[in-house]
Structures are given as structure tokens and as C-alpha cells.
């Protein structure tokens, strides 16, 4: 398989997953802000930071109001990680993969783009937001399902899975990072709000039900954190994403260094679990895990994509 093709397959999946996860993140944050008492208003600048696009946001000189922040993350052309740009990039990369992906996949992503282009600009307003973002999430899942159900499980598919799982793991760490920030405000919040907050964190990853089934005891921040990092069975936990990535990499040629770096990340995660997660070191721990993910990404690019290690079809 051509390196450039592998690179584009990997990024198609990352962009699509990013679009879906950004939509989830906004949904959860919106829900949270509805639950919090007015004196504890959620900080929308924080949402921007979690998504990793703070620099672009400040450049545009927007006020960190809810409407601005959400519109920016949904539809801002100058925000490289906006949902609209992610979908657009996925589409442009998929266009040149038409020889290897099922025909319907391109059509579905194309329709998703047309929908996103028309509607996302209106998601700044709360009354439109839920329906629009839900449809984005559903349509992204449609593509994932379509590929899983109809695509040849050759190298191209492994790169798609690899991209999806690394992006997913990355977003899980971002959401946990947001949670660790909120932990510091726990005292001001009151027990009820704390529970509500962590329920929302779980919901943003569609993990609430899975958490309940898996953890049969009282909901506490540390247990939620532990679940989202270390549970092996739920598809959006960091451990699960890394294990999935590991099985993809093993099916690809020359994968030793990549599998080693994935194993290294799993080891780091394990040692943290053994030691136990505590509020004081949580932020640093999550930083460390994000760094591990970055290393895996770089390793993948070096082994399989070079010199195509730049993100292709960047828009915005």
C-alpha cells in the first residue's frame, strides 16, 4: 500500500472521529452548564482550551461567550479543529481513497459535509444545538458502521481503525483534563453538583450506562477517572483505544516500533493505576498520557507515512 494512501486513510478516520468527539464535548458542556447554579457559571473559554484551539480563538478576538465559543468550535472556518473543517478535511481525503473504500462511504461523508455546511453555523443558539450536534454524531457513526460492515479489512482499513482509536483516546484524555480542572472547584460546588458534573463527563463519552454496569458502587470522581482511563471493555476508554490500536498495528508491516510505543503508553497507564489517581498529580498524569499518544502518532508517521507526515488536505 502506498504511504500517501495510508496517510490519508489514517487522517480520514482522525478527522471524522474529531468531528464526532467535538460534537460530544459541546453537548456535554452545554448539559453541564444547564445543571450548574448561576453563581457557578461554566467557563466557555475552558471548553475552547480543552479542544486545543485556544490560540486561534484569541486571534479572532471573540468574547468567550457561550454562543461565540460554540459557533467557533462548530463552524469557524479559521479554526482548524472546528467540526465543519474536520468534516471537510475528511471528505477531501476520502475523495482520493475512492479506490479502496466502499463507494457508499464517500457518498455518506459527502452528505454529512453538505449537512454540516448548511446547519452548523446555527448551532451557537441553544435551541438548535442539540438536534444539529446529535445528527452530526449519528452521521459520523453511520460512516464508522458502514466501513466496519462493508470494507475490505486490508491495510487501508487498519489505518482507518488506527486513526479512529488514537483520536478517540486523545479526546478521552482531553475530557478528563477538563474534569481535573473542575475537581479543583469541588468545594464550592456542593455534592449534588459534583455528581452532576461527573455524570456529564461520562455522558459526553456515552459512557454513563457502561460505567454503571461495570462499577457497582457509589459514583466518585476518582472511580470515573479510573474507569475512563483503565477499563478494558468500554470502547472509548484510553486503555481500550490503545489495545485496539495495538491489534491494528500488529496486522501492518514493519510495526515493531509502533507496537512498542503503544505498549509503552499502556505500561505508563498501568503504573498510574497501580499507584492510584489523586487530585494533586492528576493534571500532570494526563499530560504525560497525551505525550505518549503524541509519540505514537509520530512513530506511525515516521514508519509508514514519511515523507507524507504532514496532515493532508488541511483546510481553514
Amino acid at each position, binding site marked *: 500500500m502506498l*504511504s500517501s494512501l495510508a496517510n490519508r486513510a489514517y487522517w480520514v478516520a482522525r478527522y471524522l472521529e474529531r468531528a464526532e468527539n467535538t460534537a460530544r464535548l459541546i453537548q456535554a458542556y452545554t448539559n453541564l452548564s444547564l445543571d450548574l447554579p448561576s453563581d457557578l457559571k461554566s467557563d466557555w473559554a475552558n471548553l475552547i482550551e480543552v479542544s486545543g484551539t485556544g490560540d486561534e480563538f484569541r486571534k479572532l478576538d471573540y468574547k468567550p461567550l457561550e454562543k461565540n465559543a460554540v459557533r467557533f468550535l462548530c463552524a469557524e472556518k479559521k479554526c482548524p479543529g472546528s467540526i465543519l473543517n474536520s468534516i471537510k478535511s475528511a471528505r477531501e481525503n476520502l*475523495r482520493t481513497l475512492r479506490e479502496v473504500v466502499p463507494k457508499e462511504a464517500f457518498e455518506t461523508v459527502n452528505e454529512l459535509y453538505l449537512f454540516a455546511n448548511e446547519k452548523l453555523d446555527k448551532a451557537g443558539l441553544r435551541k438548535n444545538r442539540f438536534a444539529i450536534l446529535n445528527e452530526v454524531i449519528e452521521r459520523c457513526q453511520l460512516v464508522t458502521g458502514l466501513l466496519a460492515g462493508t470494507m475490505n479489512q486490508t491495510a487501508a482499513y487498519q489505518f482507518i481503525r488506527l486513526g479512529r482509536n488514537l483520536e478517540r483516546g486523545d479526546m478521552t484524555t482531553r475530557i478528563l483534563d477538563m474534569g481535573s480542572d473542575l475537581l479543583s472547584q469541588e468545594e464550592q460546588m456542593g455534592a449534588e453538583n459534583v455528581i452532576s458534573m461527573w455524570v456529564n463527563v461520562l455522558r459526553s463519552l456515552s459512557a454513563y450506562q457502561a460505567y454503571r454496569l461495570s462499577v457497582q458502587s457509589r459514583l466518585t470522581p476518582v472511580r470515573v477517572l479510573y474507569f475512563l482511563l483503565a477499563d478494558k471493555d468500554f470502547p472509548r476508554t484510553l486503555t481500550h483505544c490503545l489495545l485496539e490500536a495495538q491489534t491494528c498495528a500488529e496486522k501492518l508491516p514493519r510495526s515493531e516500533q509502533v507496537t512498542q510505543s503503544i505498549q509503552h503508553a499502556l505500561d505508563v497507564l498501568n503504573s498510574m493505576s497501580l499507584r492510584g489517581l489523586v487530585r494533586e498529580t492528576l493534571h500532570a498524569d494526563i499530560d504525560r498520557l497525551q505525550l505518549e499518544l503524541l509519540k505514537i502518532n509520530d512513530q506511525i508517521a515516521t514508519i509508514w507515512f514519511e515523507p507524507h507526515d504532514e496532515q493532508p488536505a488541511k483546510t481553514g
Partner: protein
Amino acid sequence: MDWKEYNAHDFYDELIKPGGEPRDAAAKVANYIARLSNKQIRSRQTAAEKALIEMGITFTVYSEGENIDRAWPMDIIPRIIDAGEWETVQKGLAQRLKALNMFIDDVYHNQDIVKEGIVPSELLDSSKDFLPQCVGITPKHGVWAHICGSDLVRDGDGTIYVLEDNLRVPSGVSYMIENRAVTKRVFPELFSNVPIRPVDAYPHQLFDMLVEVSPRDKDDPEIVVMTPGVFNSAYFEHSFLAQRMGTELVEGSDLVVENDIVYMRNIEGLKRVDTIYRRVNDAFLDPEVFNPESKLGTPGLFAAWAKGNVALVNAPGAGVADDKVLYSYVPDIIRFYLSEEPILANVPTYRCSDPEQLKYVTDHLEALVVKPANESGGYGMLVGPAATKAEISAFRKLIKENPRNYIGQPTLQLSTAPTITGETIEPRHLDLRPFILQGKESWVTPGGLTRVALRKGSLVVNSSQGGGSKDTWIVGER
């Protein structure tokens, strides 16, 4: 549809004789269509258009800063040619390409044809497509232009002429194959009754030829199709051919040259490439040798080819024989290299580089078609009878400023074929682009891509300028 009401006037119609009788090869199809009502014909055309969209058969138009994939325009009534007549055309095309390849090889070696005084040396010296870097190089089998798309037209008296030979990166062959797939869906009944020569052998013939020209003698050399990228108007075709041949579709950045060997970058590592069917123009092929700004090519590609380590199809520099002035010498070129008479006719051509012929052309612009030497796609030409006075005098000035760059030809009475228009069936002008392959041996497509000018009276058949297409049937036993 009553063919008695169909009137091609003074033009030669490919299917229907004056008076409404179908030609022999077209009889079954014409009788079949005669039994259909206009409404039924219309609904078959609609079905074909749907099929084209479903099958994703598109061509790309660049407009308003965005690339748009348009459905390929195709008229369902096939253009029909008698197999006996085609036999001759096929021989003529193979003869022509063989001679042109000998010419190109001569141009980059001894230039015997110039020494013998048959082709003037100024013509080569002033040719934009003569590449001095190619002098002394001998590609395998002495073949430079492995793939040629020649444009054929039929004049009012029924004679078939070669209008031009496209030796650089001719396109359209994928549409020839897809048009057939669509007619099979729309007129399945006809295929069981009429002996129609199949066209889908092309990708296999192409693949075999690409294997033949591989520098390494092996059964499974690594063959790739090289495209300028997804924004090229012929990207559909590049992707189509790569898929049909089961080869990789690469861009310049997928290839790397080390020690004059070409490799492609795979996830497994570097893999040596033997033959590159490149759809990138000479100028963009290798920034080290040609346009240094080019991002579409691969540095070092030319040197690898010159050393004989990779085959480029077509070879760089083959365009020297794809020049509208040189065209006028092709009959002499055939006589010189093959000692044969040309089987296919050339359109009489006035060379503006000759003062007397220049005078004739500038005096008779109203009646002539004038073409620049190095353009394709119907750009930059003057169709005298259809031009305004202002256009003609502007063109006269252009020609006088740069006579070497222009040729004049009489306006041909392009033949017509029945074509579905809004409500009924009317004659529309057309041409034909067969594709000729040459490796060790030659091979000619049975038929080719028929392009039709959809506008009434128009002679412009290019799809970039509102032309459509037809399936082409070679009918009768070989």
C-alpha cells in the same frame, strides 16, 4: 421515430442515407429505433443519464474556484461503423503511429529526415516540444509514443481524414469503455442480434504493453499510473485505468529516485517501479530538468529514464510529433520511413511558415479553419465561416506576428449522426478518437470515443466546451 423525417441535409450521415434509408451496418439499430416512440426514446435517454450518475462517471470542471464533478454527457444512439471499413482505418492508424515513432527516434538521433530535405530543420529548432535533453536516448523497441489518440473526421464525400495525432497525454479512453457499459444497460436487446466488437479489452492491452516496455524483463514488473492529482480534469480516467489494471495510482510525491532507480513509497518501504504510465505533461515531470516550480513531478525521474532504468509512457519529447505544422508532413514521413503509401488521408494543410501559403491563408480566412501549432482541446482556433469580421481581422494579425505557430485547413463538412435533442432526433456533427497502442506490436481500439457537438450546427466537440459523446459500434464479422 420515422427516419423519412430525419434530414442531414448536405452532410454525410453515419447512420442514415439521404432519403431516410439506413446504411447497411446500421440497419438493425435504425429499424429498432424506428419502432420506438419519441417518448420511449426519451425515457431510455433518461435511464442512461441516471446510470451515468449512479456509476459515478464524471468529468471535472473547474468553475468559481471549486472543482465540480459533472456527469459525463452521453447520447444513447450509437455511432455505427462497418467492420470492413474499420479494418482499413485500423491498419492506417497503426501505420501512422509506427512511422511517427520512427520519426521521433530519428529526430533525437541522426535526423536523416532533415538531411534528406523532407522535414525542414527550422521546424524542429522552433518546436516547443523538441527536448534537447532527449537527444541520443533510445527507449525500448524504439517506441516513444506508446499511446496515441488520433482524431478522425469524415468529410461530406465520406472520406475519413486524420485531423490530428495526440501523442502527449491523450484522454478519453475510459469514457469509451463506460459508454459501452451504459448502452448495454439501455439497449440489451440489440447486443444479441448485432455483431458488435467489444471494447473492454483496452485496459488489458494497455497493461500488456506497459509490461512489454518495462526495462527489467520479468512477468510481473511494477507498473504505476501517475496522475497530477485529484484536481486534474481527467482524474476520473486516471483512477479508472489504475483500478482496471490493478496498479497503484501515484502522484509525483509518492515516487522517489535513488541512484537513478525509481521507487514508490509503500508502507512496507521502498518498492522499485519499472513502468510509469504518466498523465503528467513533460514540463511538470521532473523539476530538476524541466519546470523547476513543478510540484507534480519527481526529482530525478528524467535521469532514471535516460539511463534506461524506468519506462515512461509516453516518453518525454514524444510531443515533437504532435505539432499541427508537423502534421502536414506526416504523409511524407510515412513514405520516408516505411516506403508505403499512407492508408489514411491527411486534411490538406496550409503552412503559414511558407510565405505563399501564408498569403493564401490570410486572404481566405473566412473559409478556413486556423489552428495554433501547439494547443489542444479546441482552444485558440478560428473557425472562419462561423467567425465575425472583427475576430477574423484580429486573427489575421496574430498569424502575421507568428506565422510558424499557425496552419490553415479548409472547413470540412463534418459528418453527422442522429442525436437525441429535447423532443426529437436530429443530426449533430461528430468526430472519433480511436486509441492506438504500440509496444512490441501495435493494437488499435475497435472504434473509439465518438464526440458529438450537441449544439445545432456546431462543430466543437470538446467536452470542456459543451460537447457530448456516443458509444461507437464496429458492426459486422471481422
